[in-house]
């Protein structure tokens, strides 16, 4: 079996998961800023 999820990831690197969630939220926010900017341009 590949070392897909070592306990280190699950327990110790929860921070990585929160960084992932934060990045997704940031991209979504950026997207809406771009959308507002583009609609304003029209």
């Amino acid at each position, binding site marked *: 079996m590949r070392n897909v999820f070592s306990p280190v990831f699950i327990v110790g690197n929860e921070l990585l998961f929160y960084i992932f969630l934060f990045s997704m939220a940031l*991209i979504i926010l950026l997207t809406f800023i*771009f*959308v507002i900017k583009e609609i304003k341009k029209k």
Partner: protein
Amino acid sequence: MKKNITGYLYFYIHFIVEVVCFFYLTRVNSESLIVWLIPFIYDGVAFVPQSIIGYISDKYPKINMGIIGTILLLITYLLYGLTNVSVFITLILLCLGNAFLHVAGAETTLKTSGGRLAPSAIFVAGGSFGVITGRVLATTSISPLIFLLPLLTLIPMVLLADSYKTSKDNCKNFNYVNKKRNPYIVVLIAFIVVIVRGYLGYGIPTSWNKTVVENIIFFCTMGLGKALGGILSDKIGIRKVAILSTLLAIPFLCAGDNIMIVSIIGVMFFSMTMSITLGIVVSSLKQTPGLAFGITTIGLFLGTVPIFFIKLSQDINIILIIVISIMCSIALGWVLKEDKK
């Protein structure tokens, strides 16, 4: 003038992309200790950045997103097949490859379509066939390295599709939205419709779907519905298709829990909305079709997030299907302008 076949070319490209993605996901997830984590990360990293990648593609059209995506997928499969590198590295590369190729498909099919929905709908439809093919192949004993060959065929396909692009390409002919409506509200409504439909897609009662063959039929019907949504919109009008498909899906979805043929008719109607919401967002963001496509993929991601954490009962799902479908139908009817035909 040569006939535009970008929709069919990207149908094939999308098909292969989903085959390799779902082959990888099914294999890797079967070895994972947390069942939901890999699909969740996949959904996030493959769907969400498409808006930013799409926006970059809109601003710098000379960057070949399709070739970048293909290279990323080739690297993923070389690493996955030949080394024991961490799954998270290959997963991120796979997701980004998927995202780049989706953006390339959306940009090419939308910009060269002359305002028609069919090419982008045919491109989108390829994914459903690829998802189920990848899942089925993952249960066999074939080596992942075999997929390097179909991945290599993507390069000439992307270049061939690019040959249909001209410097005059744009999305100015996408005029599906009622001009009296506020564009911010229009984009927001389309976004919400994608989210709720994305969520409902997982709540469709399908007790009949137990075998591999039935699962194949389910996904193929979904793909067929997505393609038909665009084709019929061009033929009879987007507003008619939006309202009718959303409402007609309700009885078939609710009554088809144990009857396959009834259920798949509902699934087909249900899937037709996909290209329609894309058409609505592109009509509001004509200068940035890549960004517009990204809005719909973010909506799909947000729609799938609850399914990882919440499980509703069948009765509540049926009530949601009825209520949300009626609301979506009213919202789409309000946003879309009257059909000419």
